[in-house]
């Protein structure tokens, strides 16, 4: 039995990483503490350095990767944003750093529990993104992330995401593969592209003057990210052969004959699957798509998965203030030119780790059934239960606020 954090640490240990710059932040800290202990005990031959900030940490990790070492680091929430500038730089260096983000809502107000505004803020940076539902998936995804990132056709850094608390601190059975087996799948990193050595001086991260050169390098990154879709499919097929576990770009749950579909990500998808099962027991053809690979965005796979469905609800565990759900907009953009496209509904839920109750899932499914039969589709729904509302009203009275709005 391993927590999500321990599973992440095992993934790093099995990848035989060379360099780990670190900085503590809840709820990620268990990952770096676990690795530090293994290194201190001589179980992992790796340079571990506690840095002075996440900004420095991401810089050091990217620079180590640019020097030809296999590098790892981990962060969460405020830490990811503190180092944000360097995400774009490290991606621009075209180095295969793998970083775990343990999702946590962004302040203010400050909180500890998860939503995905942190990791989704990084979606345009050039980092590949894999989002996980289970502890086993965290371990496995780290191994897959190195394979995809280090592929000469890709050479982009990767983020592996899990939910704080719900996954980071939840113990689940995890199969830890033998290191010899992992070596078959993930051989030592031997870069043949840019890296620093005396006989081969080179400049990295240089200035370009003029939009044509800038655009060229940005387009290169975009095309490499799209190529990562092909590479990902090869890697997941090989992973299945070696380890017997399969991770497609999407996790399709009771989808084949489904008419009503929930779209979710990360650990809350487990709640969604339970809701789908309950709906099935009541005779409704429900299903769920869990987005696993967020960057590159697997548009073809999403179109194929949602083609011909009656109605689809995107449940965003994030909020773009003044717009709505981030993934709703992304899914909508890839369906918009499709024929036989489903009605597409948008819900926000689970912010800051707020539960999504069975009643809320029933509400969503009711809305899906209504939408399938109507011309008009309702706008964004913000999920909140009456009980939560009443508790909030009580808190506001305690805080000295009169009246409830």
């Amino acid at each position, binding site marked *: 039995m391993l927590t999500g954090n321990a599973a992440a640490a095992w993934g790093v240990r099995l990848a035989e990483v060379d*360099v780990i710059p670190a900085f503590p932040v809840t709820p990620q800290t268990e990952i770096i503490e676990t690795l530090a202990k293994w290194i201190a005990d001589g179980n992992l031959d790796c340079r571990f350095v506690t840095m002075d900030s996440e*900004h*420095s940490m991401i810089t050091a990790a990217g*620079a180590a990767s640019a020097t*030809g070492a296999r590098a790892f680091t981990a962060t969460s929430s405020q830490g990811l944003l503190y180092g944000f500038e360097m995400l774009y730089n490290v991606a621009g260096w075209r180095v295969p750093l793998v970083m775990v983000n343990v999702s946590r809502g962004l302040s203010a107000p400050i909180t500890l529990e998860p939503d995905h505004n942190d990791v989704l803020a990084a979606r345009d940076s050039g980092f590949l993104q894999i989002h996980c539902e289970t502890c086993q998936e965290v371990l496995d995804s780290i191994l897959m992330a190195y394979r995809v990132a280090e592929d000469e056709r890709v050479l982009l850094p990767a983020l592996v995401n899990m939910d704080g608390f719900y996954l980071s601190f939840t113990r689940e059975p995890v199969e830890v593969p033998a290191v010899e087996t992992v070596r078959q799948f993930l051989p030592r990193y031997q870069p043949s592209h840019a890296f620093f*050595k005396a*006989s081969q001086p*080179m400049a990295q991260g240089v200035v*370009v003057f003029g939009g044509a050169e800038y655009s060229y390098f940005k387009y290169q990154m975009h095309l490499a990210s799209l190529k990562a879709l092909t590479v990902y499919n090869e890697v997941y097929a090989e992973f299945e052969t070696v380890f017997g576990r399969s991770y497609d770009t999407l996790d399709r749950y009771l989808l084949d004959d489904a008419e009503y579909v929930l779209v979710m990500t990360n650990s809350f998808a487990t709640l969604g699957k339970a809701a789908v099962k309950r709906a099935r027991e009541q005779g409704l053809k429900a299903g769920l798509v869990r987005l696993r690979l967020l960057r590159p965005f697997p548009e073809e796979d999403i179109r194929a998965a949602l083609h011909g469905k009656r109605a689809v609800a995107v449940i965003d565990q994030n909020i773009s203030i003044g717009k709505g759900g981030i993934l709703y907009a992304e899914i909508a953009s890839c369906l918009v030119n499709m024929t036989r496209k489903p009605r597409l509904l948008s819900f926000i839920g689970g912010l800051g780790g707020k539960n999504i109750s069975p009643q809320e899932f029933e509400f969503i499914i009711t809305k899906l059934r209504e939408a399938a039969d109507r011309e008009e589709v309702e706008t964004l729904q913000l999920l909140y239960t009456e009980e939560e509302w009443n508790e909030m009203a009580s808190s506001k009275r305690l805080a000295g606020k009169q009246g409830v709005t």
Partner: protein
Amino acid sequence: MALARIKSIKDLPPEENILTGTTACAGCGGLLGLRLCLKALGRKIVIVNAAGCFTLLVIYPYTPFANSWLYTAMACAPAGAQGIRDALDMLLKKGRLDPAEDLKVVVLTGDGTAYDIGLASSSGAIHRNLDFYYICYDNEAYGNTGFQRSGATPFASSTGTTPPGIASPIGANLSKKDLFAIWNSHQPPYLATVSPSHPVDLFNKFKKAEQFKGPKLFLTLAPCPPGWGIDPCRSVKLAKLAVETGVWALKESVYGAVNHTVIPRRFKPVEEYLKEQGRFAHLFKPERQEETLRKIQERVDEYWKGYQLLL
């Protein structure tokens, strides 16, 4: 290790490790300083460059450097150096890199990074005893953005964000941070100030630093013709005046113990240094700001008296 100390400018190695014709401004004192530093460091180095004037030395597809170079961002060049050093160490340890391919890691930043935005990452790298060189080219303001006040800007300097005016005739009313003292409080193996006007002193300090494993830190005075308001042909002269007036103390520190390497026999009046520069012109015209000029001279005198080098 035998230290190859030199006695004359003629003893400097003739090899150039940075090419001419760069995009730096004419008369850039920082570039001259860097050229001398690179003569001492040789070519088996990787420069980790923070955002600043010298970012613009390397413009795709050209580089003037004979060595490797990485641009990080403004705040984090010392962190980049950490990543490269750690990676090189691990690759050497695991037999994946030929020892002949090893590199010295050199951080290169302006004063905006060293004194301000990168102070934390610099402190972190020094505290961790990272084996690296740090060259700060100090032109006493944010030069690359057109000369605004930084933590290195001296009292009474005019800058883009401290313009002298009727309500505030002095210009910058804060004093220059003592970064040497801040860094020295970490007790690094080697720390020195250098000036492009004193190449022998500069070169010998780099050679002396070679014997130490850990942080080897250099603050280089960098006369800046457009920012300081001086003729490009006067950069070296100004750097020399800064030393001769006692404004820029040439010194070194080994594990915290400070020693001055050039002590003017007779200190020239600071005014001789100030009056040459557009950034201090408001202290002389339309009328002399006697009180401010006196304060500046007093502060320089106090510094040297503190070391009993001025009685």
